[in-house]
Structures are given as C-alpha cells and as structure tokens.
C-alpha cells in the first residue's frame, strides 16, 4: 500500500507542476461544453431564399408572408429573373430559389393546378431534404387555407379534417442543448482519461525513467493502480464540473439517480483508462501513442450515437457499435439523466461496461512488462 502512495504522490506532483497543462485540464471542459452545446446542432433554420415572383399578386404575397413568418426561411433577395436565382445559388448568396409562375393566382381562382418551382442547393443532402420538407408543408398549408377561405366557390367540396396532435416527452421545449450536454460530458471524460493514460507510461519509456521505475520493488498491479488512480480521480472531477455547469447554465435535469450516474462513470473511466494503458504498452513514443488514441477515439466518437443516431446506421455499423464503450455511456447518460430510467432499465449496460472494463485492464496488465527487451 505504501508503495502505491509514493507513486500517487509522484504522479500528482507531475500533473500539478506543469503550468500549461493545468489550465488546459480545467478550462477545457468549460470551453468544450459551451462550444459543443451551442454549435453541435443539426437543426436547419435561417435558410436564405431568393424569390422570383412573376405573379406579383396579393396571393403570391400571402404565400411569401407565410414563408417569412417561419423560422426556417429568410427571404434574403428577390428578382424577376430565374437566371438570377441560379446565379445566387452558385455564389452561395442563397440556399433556395423559389419561383412563382405568372399564372399563379389566376389558376388558383379558376381551380386549376399550379406549379411552383423550387431550386435547392443540395450539397448538404440532409439539409436539402429538410428544407424541401418544410417548404412543401408551408405550400400545402397555404393551399388548404386558400381552399377553406374560398369555400363558397366550391360548396360541395367541404370535408372534415384529420387532426394530428403531438406531444414531446422528456424535453418539452425541444431544447437541443439539453439533449447534447449529457453526451458531451461523456466526450469530455473520455478524452481526458484516454489521452492522459495513453501518453503516461510511454512517456516514462521515452525519457528513460521507466527503467528506473522497473528496478524498484514495486509490483505490476501496484504500479498500474498508482499510475491510473490520479487520472481516475481527475476524470471524475471533470465529470462533476461538467454536471454542475450543465445544471447551472443549461438547466439539464438529472431525473434518474445521481448515484447511478457516478457508479457507471466509475466503471466506464476504468474501461477507458485500461484502453489508454494498453495503447501505452504497445507503443514506444508519445507521438505514436497519441495518434493511436486519436484514431481510436475518432472512430469511437463518430460511431457512438453522440451526433447521429445509431438507428440510422447500416447493419454492419450497428454491430460495430456493440464494441464501443462510448456508445454505452452516451446511451446510459441520456436514459438516466433525461428520462429518469432506473437501475433495472440499464442493467444490460452495466453488464456490458463491466465486461469491457475487465477486458481492457487485463489486456493492459498482461501486456505491460517490467523488463525491457
């Protein structure tokens, strides 16, 4: 036990001594939390529309007003020339071109079909599909309103409607930040734990101090515990700061039990530390360790369901996510924090992460040799 204490003391001194690292370790979570929760949003709004209105009637004006009133569109420019619309799309001045034909109101009143043309910059496919969807909804609403306003024209065609009501559970105000914060906390904890642990041992190897540690009487497990414990504490500290900030600033609720969150986090951080340690044992330069960690993290993060839903992935990708510890923690945090899932709902996640923790750490311990070749 005493030997572990010495290693601990040494590690903490090394962390606290580095004047540049300390601010990074503590400012990072704050910056990351803010940046990510405001920027990481797929929501589509403020699309710039170039309007070409050949009709210029009260009806076309009404349609434009309807567009203007929605959050999604900004009527940024207008002209009387379709070519100008194409040009503006080319120049990134507009995202959408809307072309209203000159027989728009005439045809509507006489009960004929009218065709409105939409030009959409589709480089971002998802954005284009959503924009199209919003646009269609607004146009079809406009059509319905027109028909019910002019019901006297066609009295026989009165019909009853379909009412679709919707309720949003767990996030009434549809605040995307509330959804993102629990996931970002996972990212934060993971990055700290992974990078610190993966560079740590390899650093001793690179500088040559590993040799010195190897000739001491310390045993392998003691050495590893002493090495990882500081990072474990640090990562939990980061999580606490993140939870506190999330609660104070973004009003992120913790509907489930906070004890459960910490219990899972403790296990999860052990998993990540084990993984980082494993990387550290198979590399011999810090740069190498960083790149391997970076590579693993990027894949794990992209495939964790943090930014894009796992259900949208193809079958093979969903199988891969079964081996992704980040995916488990992200899912867990969202379930417990936002929906108040209780321990019985998340038992399977605990089992999976437990197995993972055991696996990565045994790999790391087995692979670590006190002797150099």
């Amino acid at each position, binding site marked *: 036990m005493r030997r572990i204490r010495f290693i601990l003391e040494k590690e903490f001194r090394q962390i606290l001594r580095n004047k540049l690292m300390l601010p990074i370790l503590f400012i990072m979570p704050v910056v990351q939390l803010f*940046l990510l929760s405001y920027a990481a949003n797929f929501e589509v709004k403020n699309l710039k529309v170039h309007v070409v209105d050949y009709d210029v009637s009260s009806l076309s004006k009404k349609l434009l007003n309807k567009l203007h009133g929605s959050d999604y569109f900004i009527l940024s420019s207008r002209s009387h020339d379709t070519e100008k619309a194409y040009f503006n799309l080319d120049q990134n001045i507009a995202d959408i071109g809307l072309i209203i034909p000159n027989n728009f109101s005439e045809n509507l009143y006489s009960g004929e079909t009218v065709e409105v*043309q939409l030009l959409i910059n589709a480089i971002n496919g*998802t954005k284009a599909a959503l924009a199209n969807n919003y646009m269609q909804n607004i146009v079809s609403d406009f059509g319905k309103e027109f028909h019910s306003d002019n019901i006297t024209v066609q009295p026989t065609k009165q019909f009853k409607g379909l009412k*679709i*009501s919707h309720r949003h559970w767990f996030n009434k105000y549809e605040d995307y930040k509330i959804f993102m914060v629990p996931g970002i906390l996972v990212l934060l904890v993971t990055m700290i734990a992974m990078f610190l642990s993966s560079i740590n041992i390899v650093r001793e190897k690179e500088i040559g101090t590993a040799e010195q540690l190897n000739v001491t009487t310390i045993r392998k497990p003691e050495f590893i515990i002493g090495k990882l414990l500081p990072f474990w504490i640090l990562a939990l500290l980061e999580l606490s700061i993140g939870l506190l900030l999330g609660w104070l600033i973004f009003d992120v609720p913790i509907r489930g039990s906070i004890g459960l969150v910490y219990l899972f986090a403790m296990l999860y951080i052990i998993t990540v530390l084990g993984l980082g340690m494993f990387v550290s044992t198979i590399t011999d330069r810090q740069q190498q360790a960083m790149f*391997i960690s970076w590579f693993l993290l*990027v894949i794990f993060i992209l495939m964790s369901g943090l930014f894009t839903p796992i259900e949208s992935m193809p079958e093979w990708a969903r199988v891969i996510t079964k081996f992704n510890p980040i995916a488990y923690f992200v899912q867990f945090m969202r379930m417990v924090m936002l929906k108040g899932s209780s321990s019985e709902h998340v038992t399977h996640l605990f089992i999976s992460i437990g197995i993972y923790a055991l696996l990565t750490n045994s790999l790391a311990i087995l692979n670590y040799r006190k002797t150099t070749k």
Partner: protein
Amino acid sequence: MYNLKTFFNIVKKEMQHILRDHRTLFILLGMPIVLVILFGFAITNEIKDAEIGFLDKSNDVFSLQLREKINASNYFNINTVLQNERNIEEGFKRGEIKMVVVVPNNFGKQLQRNEDVSIQLIADASDPNSANTVIGYMSAILREFHMKNIIERMQMPAISTQVRMLYNPHLDSTFYFVPGVITIILMLVSAMMTSITIAREKEFGNMEILLVSPLKPSIIIFGKTIPYIMLSLLNAVTILLIGYFVFQMPLSSKMWLLILEVILFIITSLSLGILISTVANNQQTALMISLMALLLPTILLSGFIFPIESMPKLLQWVSHIIPAKWFIIIIKDIMLKEAGVAIVWEETLVLIGITIFFLILSIKKFSIRLS
C-alpha cells in the same frame, strides 16, 4: 550549395523518422480511408426503420390498415403494440421505442362517417431533432392515409411543387462530407504532426543543437515540414480517389486550382502548427493545444458537420476566423459546382490573408528562440 545539401539532409532525416515509425504511418495513411468510409456509409441523420409503438384503442379494419401502411414504409417499424397508456413511459425509459402512435376509439367509424379524426403522436423528445423528424414523417404518412380514404373522392385542385436539387441530385451525403474530411486530415497531418514533432525536439533538447548549427532556424523548420507537406498531399489525393471510385463523386475539371488551394491550406495549417510549437515545450502540451485550439474548432465551427447558419450569432462571428471554414467553401465550390477563380477568389483572398497573418506571427515568435 552547402546550405542546399544540409537542407536536404534535414528533409531526409525527418522522412526517415516518419517512415521508421510503422504504426504512426499506418494510421496517417489509414485514417483518411476510414473516415471517408465512415462518413459515407455510417454517419447519417436519416431516419430509417425507427422503432415505434402503436396504441390501438379502436382495433378495427381501418386501424389495421393504418398499421400495415406504417410498417410498409421505410421509415418505421412497429415493434410493440401497446395495450394502454401506462406502458408508453416504460417503453421510452427502456429506450426501445422513439414514438407512439395513439389511434382513438371509433377510428374506423369516424372515418366512414366523414367526421373529424384525431390521432395523437407521442415522441421521446430527449432528442428533439429526431423527434421532430419522426413526427414529420409520420404526419405525412397519416395525411396520405387519410387522403386515400376521404379526400380522394373530392378532387381538389392542388398546388404542386417542382423541386430541383442542384449540385447533388441524389442527396448523397458523401458529397457533403468529403471536402470536410480532406480539411480535417490536412489539419491533422500538417498542423498537429508538425507541432508535436518540433515540440519533441525541444523536449529532448535537440533544438538547441540544431540552432547552433550554421543553418538559419527558418530553414531548419522549413526542412522539417517538407515531408509533412508531401504526406498531406498524398492524403488529399487518396481521399479524392476514394470519393471518385467508391462514391462516384465528380472529379473537378479545375484540378490545378484545387491543388493550388490545397497547397495554400497546407501552408495555413503548417503556420498554425509552428505557432503552437513555439508556445508548447513538450509533446503532451502541444497535443492538448492542437486538440483544443485547432481540431475542435475546425470540426465544430467550420460547417463541416453542423450548419453554421443555425448557430448563435456569436459563434457565427467566431467561425469567420476559422481558416477551415473558408477552405471548405472553396473546395466545395470547385468540386461540386465546377466553380473557377471568378467565384472563389474572395474566399481565397481571405484564406491568404489569414495564412500570412499566422505565418508572420509564428516566424516572429520563433526567432525569439529558446529561453
């Protein structure tokens, strides 16, 4: 002449460093491939086969028809038929379903009698965006169903919309991501790798030795960066080729312009990398600064993944000083819109301006030498 020879020796030394380290080399060459494939196939927002619940209070022919229609669509898959409202919350908490469709009593009768019908959609909005999307898609299916049953007989004139999807008619997500992946990889190799390499020399004290040699510091640094420039170019070409062969992305006719812009951005990244290495004095710090100050903003604020125009005003302002944002606009224009100098000159000028600024800053910082 003497200088030129030593210069090449530095290049050669750095080259050997890179080639000797198989693991890092493997990752540097493999990373772009993995990223393009992940973004091309796995990273998508599209709703497909979302698992939902169906609460049928009516249980008649019409509600059965509706259920079949929903199941037949590509978007949804009804995996639980609920018995009562109390089971809804349990389903959400287990994370098994994303939405519940509640069909009222007498659904069929109301439809037949041409009365108002109301259907309730309850969504798990812990993820508000996907909740909105599933509600949107489901509403469209319900309207269509209703249309078929009621409105079809009434023949109403409609406003139809003719839609043209420009530049990417099949809404291929690779088109959008490939430029972003190129940017990230260039940033990673040119900025992060160089900053760590130089910081490493400082950490081991080699920098002192190099600086007392007759070569100018700027020549030394330049020599060290050449291999990374070559590596970056190799990566960019790899990504373009994958885009072309695997994802049928168009290969621009303005290749020369594209390559010039890529070189410009490599210089931008290098100057950033050198700047970081002047601040950091060991590899760990260089890595952390690269991650925080370079990669994170590049990924988040460049419009690579998340649309800039939806961000708060402040972040939109910040995005202007992110070089990657301009670079992504430029290469998208060139690759997907077949744009020439006439269209991208403004963005290019901004990028050149930013590059010169960082270049001067890093040279100034560097000549102060080691403390």
